[in-house]
Each structure stands twice: as C-alpha cells, then as structure tokens.
C-alpha cells in the first residue's frame, strides 16, 4: 500500500487536489457558493503549471456544462464543479451529457434551492437531478469527497459505463469545515485513474463521427434510452469493482452502502451524506444504553442499491429514513421512496418512517437524531408508525 500524507484541510481543497491528480484536459466552470473554492484552487494549480489543463472560466453554468459536453465529445477528460442554482441551470445539459454517454465528472456542493434564497446545505439540488442519467456518489466526510472524486474517473470512463458521474459533498459542512484527510501520492492516483481512451471522439479525424443528431420520427431514440438504462445498471458492478480496487490501494472500504452496528440492530436510520456522522455518534451512545441501534449510509444513490439496502435492513423492526430534500406531492423524500421500494420484495418488511430534516441548513442537533431513535423504539414495541414526512426540528 503506498504511503499517504495526512493533512488537515477543507473538503473543497481536497476535491481540488483530487481534480489535479486526475489530470483533466478541460475544466470549464462558473463560481457559486459553496463550490467556488474547488475551482479557484484548481485554477491556481493551472496557473502554477502543476496541472496541464484548459481551464475555462465561463459566464454561466449552462455554458459550463455546454463546454464540458463539447470538450468531452471532442475526446477530452473533463471535470467541473457546481452547486444549487448552478446545477439547476445546467438542467438541459445534464441530459445531453448522459444521453451522449460522455464521462464527465462533476463535484456538487449540496445546497438548497431558491425560493426563498438560501445558501446552506441540503440535497434539493442534487436530488432534483436524480433522474438525469448521471451516476451519483455521496460523501459523508472530506476524505470520502476526495476518494469519491478519484473513483469517479474510472467509473465514468469504464467502457461498460461511459456515463457522467456526480460526486456530491455537503455544502459548508463538508466543503468548508477543516477535517483530517489522507491524500494519495500523484503517481498512485495517476496509475489508478489511467489514461482516458475516448470512443467516437470528434477529434479522431481519421474516424469522423457526428454527435447529437436527430433520432426521432421513427429513429432509434427509444433504443438509445434503453441502452442508457442498461449502462447505468451495469455501472453498479463497476462502482463496486472500482471501490474494491481503491480500498486495496487506500485501506479504506467503499461499498454501495455502508452499514454500522447493523448485525443485530432492531432500529435503524438510513441516511445520506454528512448527517451519517451524527447518526453514528448517537447510535453508539444508544448502544451503550442497551438500545440495538444501527446505521445504513447510502453512498451510491444512482444506480440505487436496492438489494443491498433490503439485505441490510432484513432483521430490523423499525427504520427511519432521513431525507435532506423534498419530493413535493410524493409520500416522502427521495431516499424514503427508494427505501420503501427496496423493501417491497423483502420477506420481512419493517415499519418505515420518513423524516425531512436540515432543509436550507437548518441545524441537525444530536437530540433530534436521538428523538428519531426514540420514535423507532416506540414503533418497534407496538406504537403505530408515524405518517410522514415528519419535519424534524422545524419550528
């Protein structure tokens, strides 16, 4: 195992470091809080000659993703970063990137959407993009944000996949807090991500192709979409394979989900992102008090690990799903909907309740997490399950 360097720095700074180590050819970007410093640090690396990339500071996120699409179609390795309204403004192009099967890698600093105006963390932005055909990985910590960024390249560029990958980290909580992170050396990362060998590149002048042509009026549009579905289904095994390979290199485990204290758990919380840390902390306290509490953290949201989640929850009596985003008009938040779906085929179906929490950065206090486990213990001993979503801690 190569030696790693331990640093104390922000999530954004290590994502910028990962960008540099992945050696993209082109990085078009537009600033938005709390993403901005990822690209600023990368721009500095370019100016210092520490990475040889075409860095393009464009005039909007729509332009940023358009430039990503153009550069990727040309055959370049392309990375960018955004957040919130920026991701929303990329909407059209997100579908172009996945539809044209372009392995673009984008970091997203998870942030609330307007209106009303808010700059703090929640998952409304990324969850709004969950059906755009991108592979989506979520980080709990700065370390995971760094690791996920590196792993995104071989996942996206795998010939079996060729899809864009979004690597999501919680705005401010992970992007701006200083954390302890182990960094790989440049050579190891280089070797791990390998060299990009584009297929059907526009700049492959000996084999001219066109991208983005009309496929309607009886053309192959429908079949295109099926092949896209097959690709994202195949990506699940690739996320696992790349995770296992990176585990070997780094000593850190990477599954589609992460389970903690689940072997004999009776009550469990399913969560995404930085709040997993709060839940783990409370679950450990409860364990000391004799409560059989556990945690399931979903790391890969697209493709969604239905079977893995169902297996993890097989022995549990009551489950709480914490959503940091709404799906207005649905039964609950996006993670809740997926979790319920995952459990439909299960032999044993636990009670499942949904909490929407932390919207617009509203504080996720440990007492709130504790109250969730208390609700679950009540449900496990016969109290009827709550009808959600419950707005956890809303005044």
């Amino acid at each position, binding site marked *: 195992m190569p030696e790693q360097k331990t640093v104390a720095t922000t999530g954004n700074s290590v994502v910028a470091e990962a960008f540099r180590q992945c050696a993209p050819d082109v990085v078009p970007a537009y*600033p938005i*809080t709390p993403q*901005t410093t990822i690209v*600023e640090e990368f721009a500095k690396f*370019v*100016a210092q000659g520490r990475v040889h990339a075409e860095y393009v*500071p464009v*005039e*909007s996120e729509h332009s940023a993703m358009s430039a990503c699409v153009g550069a990727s179609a040309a055959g370049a390795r392309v990375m960018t970063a955004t957040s919130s309204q920026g991701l929303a403004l990329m909407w059209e192009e997100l579908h172009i990137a996945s539809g044209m099967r372009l392995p673009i890698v984008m970091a997203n600093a998870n942030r609330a959407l*307007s209106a009303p105006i808010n700059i703090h963390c929640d998952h409304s932005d990324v969850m709004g993009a969950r059906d755009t055909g991108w592979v989506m990985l979520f980080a709990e910590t700065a370390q995971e944000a760094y690791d996920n960024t590196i792993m995104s390249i071989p996942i996206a560029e795998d010939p079996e996949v060729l899809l864009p990958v979004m690597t999501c980290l919680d705005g401010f909580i992970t992007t701006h807090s200083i954390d302890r992170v182990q960094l790989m050396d440049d050579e190891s990362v280089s070797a791990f991500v390998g060299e990009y060998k584009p297929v059907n590149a526009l700049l492959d002048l000996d084999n001219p192709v066109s991208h983005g042509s009309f496929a309607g009026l009886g053309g192959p549009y429908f079949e295109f979409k099926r092949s896209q579905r097959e690709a994202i289904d195949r990506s699940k095994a690739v996320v696992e394979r790349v995770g296992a390979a990176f585990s070997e290199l780094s000593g850190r485990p990477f599954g589609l989900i992460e389970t903690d204290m689940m072997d004999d758990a009776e009550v469990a919380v399913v969560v995404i992102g930085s709040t997993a840390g709060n839940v783990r902390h409370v679950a450990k306290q409860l364990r000391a008090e004799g409560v059989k509490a556990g945690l399931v953290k979903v790391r890969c949201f697209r493709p969604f690990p239905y079977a893995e989640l169902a297996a993890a929850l097989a022995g549990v009596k009551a489950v709480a799903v914490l959503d940091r985003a709404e799906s207005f008009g649905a039964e609950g938040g996006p993670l809740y909907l997926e979790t319920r779906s995952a459990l439909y085929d299960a032999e044993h179906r636990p009670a499942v309740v949904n909490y929407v929490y932390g919207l617009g950065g509203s504080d996720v206090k440990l007492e709130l997490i504790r109250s969730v486990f208390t609700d679950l213990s009540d449900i496990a001993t016969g109290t009827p399950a709550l009808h959600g979503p419950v707005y956890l801690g809303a005044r």
Partner: protein
Amino acid sequence: MPEVKEYTTPHKPTWCPGCGNFGMWEALKRALSQLDLDFNEFSVVWGIGCHGNGADFLRTQGFHALHGRSLPVASALSLTRPDLKVIVEMGDGDGYGLGMGHFIHSVRRNIDMTCIAHNNQIYGLTTGQASPTTEHLMRTVSTPGGVLEEPVNPLGLALAQGATFVARGFAGDIPHLTELYKQAIGHEGFALIDVFQPCVTWNKLNTFSWFRERVYNLEDEGHDPSDRRAAFELSLTTFHEMTCTPDECRVPIGVFYRDDEVPTYNEDATGAGDPGYHKATKPRDISDLIAAFG
C-alpha cells in the same frame, strides 16, 4: 414628499465599509424623494449579488430575482403595471454575464423601465472572481493567469441595439448620480445607467481614486445627447488598459444618448400605439379537410 430617510428599512446594510453600493443607495433614495415617488408608485427588482442585498435596505415593494434574471421579472412588472416606475438593480456579472441575453432583448424591446447596473467589474458576493467587465489581463481568484477576454462594453451594446436612454454614473459622485437617476426614471422606455461602483474589497484596480482621477462630465464638454453616433464613439473610449494614466484615459460620465420619441413596447403591446400585428388575420376554412376524415 417622502423624505430620503423614509426609503430606508430598519436593516443595517451588510456591505463592506466604503463600498460603492452606499453611494448608489443614497443617490437612489434622493432621486425617489425628489421625484416625490410614494411607496405604491415604484417598484424595484434586484438580481443576485452584493448589489442585490440592497433588497433588504431599500423600502419598496421589491422582488429579489434569481442571479441574472431581474430584467424578465421587471419586464412583466412594467407591462402589467404601467402606472409603476419600475427600477432594476443588477450586477455586472448578473446583468452582463449570466443575464446578458435578457439585457440585449430588454434593450431592443424598449420596455419602460430604469435599469441600474452596479458595475464594480468583479463578482463581489462570491468573493472576487472576474466578471464580464473585469479589465483585460487583470488577475483575480478565478483568473490567476489574468483575464483573457476583452471586457463587455455595455453602453456600446445598448446603443447598437437601439437603446433610447444610455448613461453612465459614478458612485463617488452622488449629486450627479441622483440627477441621472431622475432623468432615467422620467424617461419613457428602457433607460440604462451603468454605474462605476468600486468594490473596495475585491477590485484593487478600479478604485474610487482611480475613477476620481479619470472621470469627467459629458455635460461640461458640450456633448450633444441626441447625437447617437457621437454617443457610440464615446462608448468606444478605451479606458480599460490596466496601465493607462489619467491623461491617457479619460472616462466620460453623464447622459450619452437620449431619444424620447421612440414608442415603448408597453404602448405597442397594449395597443396604445398602432402596431401592424394587431390587424386581425382571416381564419382559413378547413371544413373540407375535416369532412375528408369523416
């Protein structure tokens, strides 16, 4: 007549001490007061940026739009409430970058509104990245190697697109700016006032003193604001060379161009003018076609 201080909300401005936004805020309040505009007679739409934070500090029935999207909101407001004086406060990034498309189309429509651009030649709120008006080769956090593009020329663009009121102000000259605002608000049609608004925190090149040494008043030099070609010529004055001395680059402020005879989109769209497109077209008889399908 509401007094100047009545246009202030109880919220203390969050702008950095010394920011050019203070001067613009003051000038607008003075203009509103001198025009005797009561709170139900005008409305302000802000974009996103430091300028947009003014939404909390100016007492009005306001709308804080998305980054780059103040002009379409204001257009709708102007068309549905022609009795209101509609004012837009946009940033240089906001209005000349992400919202550039809206800017050009609002100009060519000649919708009745006053568009005030807080041109600090930087993205202030997101802490110091290059904007579309940042000077060529200037180093910023987003352009550590220097800006490669030529800056946008807002006045030239507006003039080329048929703008009916085009002016430039300086946040460091509040009385002059107040007069510009009053003229622009009084103008029927799209009025652009591009205002140099020094960002004391992030733009260390285009500072108050940089402008003080360079600006001169067009009225003092006998510029004729009905002369569109002369206005266009003036808009091309290149003052944005980083190294240019005050003698080499003098920066004109004041009214570049004004034409009060052009009908507004408001008049045309509401039928007050006489646009050809209001003529009814004769519907085609397709009963044979329908009959053919039984």
